[in-house]
């Protein structure tokens, strides 16, 4: 007795989250990886909203997608943009 339309939303969001996380891990361009992580955070925030947790969704959107991305971007600016094997 599961509602299939809700399950469908869960599956779509879940697959998208896994994909964006995997892309973030795979990309050699760190800045692009960070953008992928920001997308991951936004999807996660959307999932929180779907699961009736608007408080957490707001925190995740502001912190995960906003500030953390800015901190990453600054850190990458100071260091190296490409992931290189040395």
């Amino acid at each position, binding site marked *: 007795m599961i509602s299939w339309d809700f399950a469908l939303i869960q599956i779509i969001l879940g697959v998208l989250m896994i994909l964006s996380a995997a892309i973030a891990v795979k990309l050699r361009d760190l800045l692009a990886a960070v953008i992928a992580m920001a997308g991951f955070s936004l999807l996660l925030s959307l999932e929180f909203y779907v699961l*009736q947790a608007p408080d957490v969704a707001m925190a995740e959107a502001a912190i995960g997608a906003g500030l953390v991305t800015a901190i990453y971007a600054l850190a990458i600016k100071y260091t*190296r943009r490409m*992931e290189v094997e040395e």
Partner: protein
Amino acid sequence: MINWEIVVQNFPFLVVGILMAIGVYTVTMKRNLIKIVIGVEIIESAVNLFLITLGYVEGAYAPIYTMAPKAAENNMVLPTPQALTLTAIVIGLAVTALMLALAINIYRHYGSLDVRVARRLRE
């Protein structure tokens, strides 16, 4: 045999498991410091998602009384995991910020973000 209905129903839990596995793989196997930080962030997000999924109640509403629909009375998702997740998100941010600061400093000293180059502390 695998009960496919349960697999579909528990799909959010499976997502958590897969994200955890991706994160652990990243932390243990990647050599770039920033990638390691990303791995830690993925594990943290997975656990946050886990807590929220635990609190979800089929067909229930957000635990806020202000201007809620009539059906929400006595039919709310569990609020505790949401409070715990708020704490966990802020802790995750704190860890990420400190790890990135350390990564910048390591780059300043060693000129590289590769863990094999940045390893003077051998056994």
